[in-house]
């Protein structure tokens, strides 16, 4: 139990990373690293439930959704970013906020030309 407590305390105290965000700015990472575990939960935008017609839990489904929800000219004019940063009841995900780092990476991916889409 003591060793377990150490593990938990270590986890709770973790700011963990020390480097700037070096995660891949790619379609695969945006989908499987950010959107699938948050927006793509089975009850929401999954291939099973497909709320509003969009799913993010697989690459194929996400490709279809992101083609519609992102604007190849600008992140700021993309529907995806609009709902992630909305200040009203349409904000997504509706159950739990996304980290700023994730929103920034998704924006960067769009502004970089939506690589891999």
């Amino acid at each position, binding site marked *: 139990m003591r060793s377990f407590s150490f593990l938990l305390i270590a986890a709770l105290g973790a700011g963990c990373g020390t480097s700037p965000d070096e995660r891949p700015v790619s379609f695969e990472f945006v989908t499987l690293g950010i959107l699938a575990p948050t927006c793509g939960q089975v009850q929401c935008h999954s291939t099973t*439930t497909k709320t509003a017609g969009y799913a993010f839990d697989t690459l194929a489904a996400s490709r279809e959704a992101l083609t519609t929800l992102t604007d190849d000219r600008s992140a700021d004019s993309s529907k995806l970013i609009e709902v992630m940063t909305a200040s009203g009841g349409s904000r997504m995900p509706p159950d739990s906020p996304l980290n700023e780092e994730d929103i920034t990476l998704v924006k960067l991916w769009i502004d970089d030309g939506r690589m891999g889409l």
Partner: protein
Amino acid sequence: MKSLQIHAALVVVALAVLAHRADAYPQYQVGRDVTCTGCHVSPAGGGALNENGIAVAETTAWRGGDGSFMYGWKTPSWLALDGDMRGAAGYVNPGVSTAAAYPMQAEVGAIVKAGAGFSIRAVGGLRSPQDGGSIAHVLWSREHYVMWQQNPDSSEGFYVRAGRFMPTFGLRLAEHIVYTQRFGGDPLYFEAYGLNASYISKAFEVHATGFVHDPIATVAEHGDGGALYAEARIGEHAAIGIEGKHSVSDETTMSYGGMTGKVYLPGPDLQFQAEGEVIRKDITAGAGDIAIQLAGYLMASKPLDHGLMLDIGVGHFTQDTRVKGLYRDAIDANLHWFMTSHVEWLLTTRIELLDGAGGPNGGYALAQLHYRL
């Protein structure tokens, strides 16, 4: 149209936040010196209650009453029936406040005892509708399996299951939004087809499962793999466990490893449960990427008078150890009221802090009604 979209979003929030499985209350385990099978039919706990589980429901509740199916419906000795319904209402805040009310779960189940320790278990019910999908899409069977039990008249011994069920892994709390479940390899609807062997005694239990994803009703688990959970009692009022899970899909390879701990303090009648996991997320599609994640949860539970039970929990999830600040913490408080042996009210609340409160914050306060048939 906009109000329709908002309404749909509220329903989704509700299902996302709340859709519980009808799981066990592990809060009882060490303090009451029982195993999951002391109260439940399944060796993993959760779902249908056995005879002792019904008796516990009757004695735990404020106004117990007849806890058997439909208050005493007679069924043949080879058949047992059960069912669960849940609904909730309240307030959620993902950065903005929203009120919502919604249904969550409606399931009925049956167990057919076939003799020689064999039984067949099936659960059928409703799930979130797909936008534009047919009514047939809403109906499904989350669990269906054949089980062999070495000692059908005892809660201890060997169990073998084949069919569709949740691979046995970790603490298996009823609250699936706990980070160690949501991000830790045991989220909602992660049932898969598999073969499970369990050995359960009061001194220790071991569960090993091999599984493949459901090729027909594709849900949350897209991978194939295995899960292992082993837990041993330490003295009279403590237990320690180890867990591991590996799942490989076309796009990711997920590996989970961790520990669980349970301690009961008889004086204050408090039970502590904790789980910590290290997760290796290997995105194998495209150029690939490997991230290490950490998930932890600590919960204290205190039974109170009049059928009440209070849980206070704290959770942590580091999404990627390479990125400074990419984590979230949660503080949970749940007040259960077992009003009768069939009716449970639950007030569940959470405050969620991102990036050490440097980022956006979230939370919810919801009242839930759980009715067991």
